[in-house]
């Protein structure tokens, strides 16, 4: 559980430099050196007067369960937003008008943000969840030559180290 500094909040109060027993907070790019950071130490988190440092959790609880009705409706609406995104992206790719392209690109981005949020709330909130693992496992059946199988395997190995981990 290493510490993380939010550079937008950092007031350069320097307390983290004074309290860190390993010098992990003293870097030229403001990113705390996780190789030096002592997991769970908390000294910099407690000392920072700007509240700019927090601990990144190692584990997360299972995500909240979803009812089948909620899943059905979120998926139906998510599907609609995805289709609208695909249409807008196709218009942006084919139109001759720079202004129409600008508007279509905005529509595509807007619909993708809505689709991501709506589908996230259909049971895909947490990257480490059992639902995400099942989605990844099903992807392993994809044998297309251009399919990035290595990305799936990396996620299954790094995010889902044990079978019963949520």
């Amino acid at each position, binding site marked *: 559980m290493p510490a*993380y500094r939010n550079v937008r909040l950092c007031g350069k109060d320097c307390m983290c430099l004074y309290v860190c027993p390993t010098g992990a907070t003293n870097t030229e790019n403001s990113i705390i050196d996780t190789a030096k950071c002592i997991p769970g130490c908390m000294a910099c988190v407690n000392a920072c007067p700007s509240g700019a440092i927090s601990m*990144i959790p190692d584990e997360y609880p299972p995500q909240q*369960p*979803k*009812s*089948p*009705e*909620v*899943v*059905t409706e*979120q*998926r*139906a*609406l998510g*599907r*609609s937003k*995805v*289709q*609208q*995104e*695909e*249409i*807008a*992206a*196709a218009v942006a790719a084919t139109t001759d008008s*720079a*202004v*129409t*392209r*600008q*508007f*279509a690109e*905005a*529509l595509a*981005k*807007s*619909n*993708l*943000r*809505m689709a*991501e*949020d*709506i*589908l*996230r*709330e*259909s*049971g*895909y*909130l*947490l*990257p480490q969840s059992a639902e995400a693992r*099942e*989605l990844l496992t099903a992807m392993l059946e994809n044998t297309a030559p251009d*399919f990035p199988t290595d*990305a*799936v395997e*990396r996620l299954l190995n*790094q*995010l889902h180290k044990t079978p019963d981990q949520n």
Partner: protein
Amino acid sequence: MRRFECSVCGYIYDEAVGLPEKGLAPGTKWEDLPEDFVCPLCSAPKTVFKPLGETAAPQPAIKRNNPVVNGDRAHGDIRDLSAGEIAAICSSLAKGCEKQRLIEEMEAYSALADYFKTKGMAQGVTLADTAVMLNEDIAKGFAAAKAAAQADGDRGALRSLIWSEKVSIMLQSLLDRFANEGDDMLSNTKIFVCDICGFIMLGGAAPEICPVCKVPQYKIVEIERR
């Protein structure tokens, strides 16, 4: 004196107060506002305002007839997901990894999102096609989804629906205008999209915070003309 609420951002126009900074004196009636009046906070058009004090008739829950859940798994069957839907789930999970500072995992989910995105390209379509689907979402889809989320006390799902319904109402007004005005709609304005909720705003500068999800300005991006 009556009051009217913007259904996108919640701004209330009070006839008794008017909007003096826009030249609308106290006492200016709603019907006397110009037709091109827009919400001073989110620039939504006059048509999305609703009178306050009138309780809207409860919307009957409209059930869709395309169930996508098979068996007893509450997250549905992943084989029912289209390539575009998997792309959206993967790009959302990539952001989840980014928030957890898991950079390699973020890149892996992004690679999957990119792969599936290219498999779902539409062809021979126009923006009018999206308007038809959007109108259907606003007429039926949101009511059905909100009813399901409310029945289950699922505040996360409800939150996503409230935000995206507001964004959808704004998109509907922009698509209506675009159908009438064409490219002229954007001739003298910039266009901004909230990178969190997808809200679209026309204007000279991005707002201090998103009118829908309240995220600060640095997460609202300008879409350039190119």
